[in-house]
């Protein structure tokens, strides 16, 4: 998102998830909304993530839709091709359902998986071309980060204060 790319704000680095969580709490108490706050983490941090968004990830709907689409495609493809040019093989019925099951299953998994991938990319805004100004390479290594994005100078200094207050290793101004 262009807002993310061109934004500016304050970043704090933390040693642990607990510190990070405290920072998020403190920021919210200070009046920052989850939309303003981005947390960076080298590991998945489920409770923090939920805390920041409350909503369950919509990826599951994509998986479901993709899967169902695959099931239908599988059924349609097999039955339609049986019908398109009926050829008798092995004395079997020219439109046999059991064999459709295999194709339906495979396409369910295939399209389900591809839709899941699409969903994760879309919702995670990936691939992304710009860098979040709050990001620091150590956030993929050992540190956690909290970035408050705000263009307002006052809000920035408030955020800086809050981050300092919860024991950030380092707090700095970050701009794209």
């Amino acid at each position, binding site marked *: 998102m262009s807002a993310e790319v061109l934004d500016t704000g304050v970043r704090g680095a933390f040693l642990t998830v607990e510190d990070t969580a405290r920072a998020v709490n403190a920021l919210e108490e200070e009046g920052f909304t989850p939309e303003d706050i981005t947390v960076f983490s080298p590991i998945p941090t489920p409770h923090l993530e939920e805390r920041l968004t409350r909503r369950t990830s919509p990826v599951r709907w994509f998986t479901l839709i993709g899967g169902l689409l695959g099931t239908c495609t599988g059924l349609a493809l097999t039955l339609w091709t049986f019908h398109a040019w009926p050829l008798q093989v092995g004395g079997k019925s020219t439109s046999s359902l059991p064999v459709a099951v295999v194709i339906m299953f495979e*396409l369910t998994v295939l399209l389900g998986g591809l839709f899941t991938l699409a969903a*994760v990319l879309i919702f995670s805004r990936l691939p992304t071309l710009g860098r979040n100004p709050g990001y620091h390479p150590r956030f993929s290594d050992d540190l956690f980060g909290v970035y408050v994005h705000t263009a307002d100078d006052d809000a920035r200094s408030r955020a800086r204060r809050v981050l300092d207050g919860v024991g950030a290793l380092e707090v700095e101004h970050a701009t794209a």
Partner: protein
Amino acid sequence: MEETARPAMTEGRAQATVYRRVTADVLATLERPGLGWFALMALVLTGLAFGALSWIYQIKNGLGVAGYVPPVFWAVYITDFVFWVGIAHSGTLISAILFLFRAQFRTAVYRISETMTVFAVMTAGLFPLIHLGRVWYFYYLIPYPNERLLWPNFRSPLVWDFFAISTYFTISSLFLYIGLIPDIAAARDRAIEGTWRHRLYSMLSLGWQGTDRQWRHYNRAYLFLAGLATPLVLSVHSVVSWDFAMAIVPGWHSTIFAPYFVAGAIFSGVAMVITLLVPLRKVFHLEDYIESYHLDRLARLLLLTSLIVFYAYAVEGFIAWYSGSEFERAVFWDRATGQYAWAAWIMYSCNCFIPMALWSSRVRTSWFWMFIISIFVNIGMWFERFVIIIQSLAHEFEPYMWDYYRPTWVEWGITVGSFSWFFMWFLIFIKVMPSMAIAELKELLPPKLKRQKEKLEGRA
């Protein structure tokens, strides 16, 4: 606030130290390869060239350059195919099924097994092409609207196979790739800007930054993919087994084949994981991550699947006898005593008898013995497919046609080429991609690192 922050800082510093170590240790495997790696690569490329030339020779002259002797219309290529599909299975088992079961020992080994899966499917996928009489018409198998108004026959297990293998390849590649994204990002952040590595990692990490939003969708997707991959693993080898079970060939036409093949696949896959893990651990000094505890768990899986396979062999023989079908009986009698008895007994020994050593916990935790046993299992499982395919065909319904098949140099060449192809990708992978899951290792620290962390905290 100051007071509560202090112990957290101590604990945090210890954690950061350990995290840094994990990143460093794993990324250390990506360092400039040594002479050994180049030597191996040269070997593998030679093998691959041999395989490729063999294939070109075969395409030019016809499948007859392979040793096929009717009625053995399928032989080493299909053996290789099933072997590699089998190898491909434990990867997804370890990465997906054990993920769903939250088996902790998986963390250290799943990347390797998943990689193995993808490369094994890539290898396996070549064989249906290699074995085609007219490979240049392979696209007849693909359902696409064409001028001839013709479609493939969805009743054929080979079309199921086509769908199953391509789905499996797609899903397992996705699964591998999605798992890799955060680790590639970590590698990107450690790489020197301007180098090809940095460019590559930048591209492949898709700009991953580990934000809360990314992690949230990522975790969901990973879970769903695991959920999709789990039935897929079981189905793919079932479908492969139906290539045989759907046929009426005595020795193939058997209801037990699907579970039996799945078990066999996991058996061979776990063995291959061990075969790869043992040298990797040594070379990359990953002793702190991969411990005998991991080995023991894999060994137990190996033992379990060996017993299932053993049971399947016994049931096959029993049913052949109990069915009263003279054809079934003849095939199984011939299997044990006929001209392919040598292969059958290699199979029984390697798959049933040798793995019985795994009842001993000392063997299970011995890197040396596990390596040896895993090699035997690999050999045994290759011969299992050889015996099922070739011996059954060679001793079919028509006594007039009974014959004896021997592979030719072309088939050996292509088989060697397939191993080379697999190991080539593997060798490239371990030098380009993190071969252990960095993020997950941090999340669930392996015991040694946990101890190190505790020690650091104590000293602080």
